[in-house]
């Protein structure tokens, strides 16, 4: 990987050099826990309570990426998300009620119930301008947003999340080449969880990794251990600076693992047990909380309290969403056109 900047796991000793205050690190852990507990609850709402239905793609196991990348952005930077977007939304500070409300199809939802889980991360007030359910399609859209930012001489950049499966779409190639040729300020973040639905990465993509392939477009490209939030943050901070300064695209591949099935109903029996176990042992939330305790930034007790708070918050969101009302059908026609 000659052309690629590799960022492996960050040792605890290095934590102090990262430039994050203890407070910031605890907040990052809290966000990761919010995603974790939210998704676990959603899973139960589908599989146990049977209260939610339809497609839903959990972010479990990838928490370090959303939190690490988004921590490196300003609130004004734009985000393009996907159908696996709950994590991006929560890391951006979208309220749990609204997110849960969207899953319940309620008017209080981020998209008033019209988008559902797959588009629930689309929330303009938090500068998430798109959550697409078409694999790869966010990549050229992000290029267009970047074109606009550059045109307006804005200092903001756009960050576009997508999976390893997206790397085999035409949109990936056209979009990244376009961004590279036109020099557009986009940070492309490939969350390589090693599966595109049932297809393992090795059978999906002809190159050994996405980062190196992307460097073929002449981009600066990072290959990052994606289960370590601090590693993700370090790489992202550097990458974001680069994008902002040079107004050119930069690429990050984060290696991670989808802890659950592709969608909430998928039991994912196609994966080798050892592989799953290996990655579960490297769970990003456990890893980070252990480190913070080790580092003395947090006590076990405090950790437990945070977790309890988060769980309560999730439960409250469920309560609110459950009781919220659905939009009137007649209202839908208002959302078709802006003008008539």
């Amino acid at each position, binding site marked *: 990987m000659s052309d690629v900047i590799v960022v492996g796991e960050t040792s605890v000793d290095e934590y102090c050099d990262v430039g994050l205050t203890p407070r910031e690190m605890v907040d990052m852990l809290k966000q990761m826990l919010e995603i974790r507990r939210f998704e676990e609850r959603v899973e139960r709402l589908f599989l146990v309570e049977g209260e939610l239905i*339809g497609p839903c793609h959990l972010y479990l196991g990838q928490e370090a990426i959303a939190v690490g990348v988004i921590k490196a952005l300003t609130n004004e930077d734009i985000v393009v998300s996907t159908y696996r977007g709950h994590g991006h939304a929560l890391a951006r500070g979208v309220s749990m009620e609204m997110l849960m409300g969207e899953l319940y*199809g309620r008017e209080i939802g981020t998209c008033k119930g*019209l988008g559902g889980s797959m*588009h629930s991360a689309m929330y303009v007030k938090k500068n998430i301008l798109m959550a697409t359910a*078409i694999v790869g399609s966010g990549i050229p859209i992000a290029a267009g947003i970047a074109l606009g930012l550059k045109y307006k001489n804005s200092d903001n950049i756009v960050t576009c999340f997508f999976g390893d499966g997206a790397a085999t779409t035409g949109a990936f190639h056209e979009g990244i080449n376009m961004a590279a040729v036109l020099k557009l300020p986009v940070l492309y973040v490939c969350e390589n969880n090693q599966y595109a639905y*049932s297809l393992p990465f090795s059978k999906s993509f002809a190159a050994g990794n996405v980062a190196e392939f992307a460097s073929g477009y002449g981009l600066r490209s990072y290959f990052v251990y994606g289960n370590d939030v601090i590693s993700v943050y370090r790489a992202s901070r550097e990458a974001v600076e680069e994008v902002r300064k040079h107004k050119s695209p930069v690429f990050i591949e984060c290696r991670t693992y989808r802890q659950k099935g592709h969608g909430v109903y998928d039991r994912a029996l196609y994966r080798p047990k050892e592989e799953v176990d290996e990655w579960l042992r490297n769970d990003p939330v456990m890893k980070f909380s252990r480190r913070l305790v080790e580092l003395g930034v947090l006590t076990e007790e405090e950790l437990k309290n945070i977790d309890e708070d988060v769980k309560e918050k999730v439960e409250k969101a469920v309560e609110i969403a459950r009781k919220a009302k659905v939009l009137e059908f007649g209202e839908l026609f208002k959302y078709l056109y802006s003008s008539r």
Partner: protein
Amino acid sequence: MSRMITYAEALNEALREEMRRDENVIVFGEDVAVIGGAYRVTKGLLEEFGSRRVLDTPISEAAIVGMAVGAALIGLRPVAEIMYLDFLTLGMDQLVTHAAKARFMSGGQVKLPLVVRTQYSLGRVHASQHSQFLAPWFLNVPGLKVVLPSTPYDAKGLLKSSIRDDDPVLFIESGVLYSTKGQVPADEYLVPLGRADVKKTGDDVTIVAVSRTVIEALKAAEKLMEEGINAEVIDPRTINPMDWDTILNSVRKTNRLVVVDDGHKTGSISAEIAAKVVEEAFDSLEGPIIRVNSPDIPVPSSQPLEKTFMVSAEKIVEAVLKII
């Protein structure tokens, strides 16, 4: 001998039988091999026919359809799966500008015996980007054949015919129908392309319905019966080519027509059927032709809203009552 099996099982049997019968039939697409398809229509094919004939592909819809074009050009009978009809928007160039035209534009030098199987998911809370019923577009693509089965029996017989057909076939399944059951003969049979099926005979009004809405039309016909109205329900099954004779003959008999499909009303399949009937059988018509369709807005995700959005037996009954 016949058994009750599901629509998905019927499709699976069709694939199996044709793969056994003809070595040239191969299957590829996203997640079709190891897990047997997102909706299990290709389940067990990998085990029976091996990885030479059943291939998982990357997420590359344009290349999947393009590969089907190439494989057909060299003499195979590829059956490519596009997981959702929505994703076919990414393969339109290959399907419309290549598959449907290669024979014509080469002066008949080649044939393209390929099938693109896909499904539309309206009715499963999949939201705007996964619920599109894009079938009407393909009415306007000469060179393609387009099939939309509504029952397990038709699904099996039509898929077998599609695979044997020497022209490119777009085979659109209904996601909500996968789990519906119906009688399917144990012995081999085919359902020919281009022939409509009269699902119920009647004299008072003709209801032409497509895919999932055939089920709703039949429910509507039952309710109408209670009010003394005897509706004829026709399922074209193939919309390109359409079996105009069956439709026109029915309208000439009943003098009234309601057309139904799961698409947005404007530019729908129903529009073409209405236009053709008014062109060819104007004098038989005793009232306007009413279309029952989805409204002209994208599909909302919220379940109750999606339900209101969709064509239902009630809406069909209402339409019939308007013209009777």
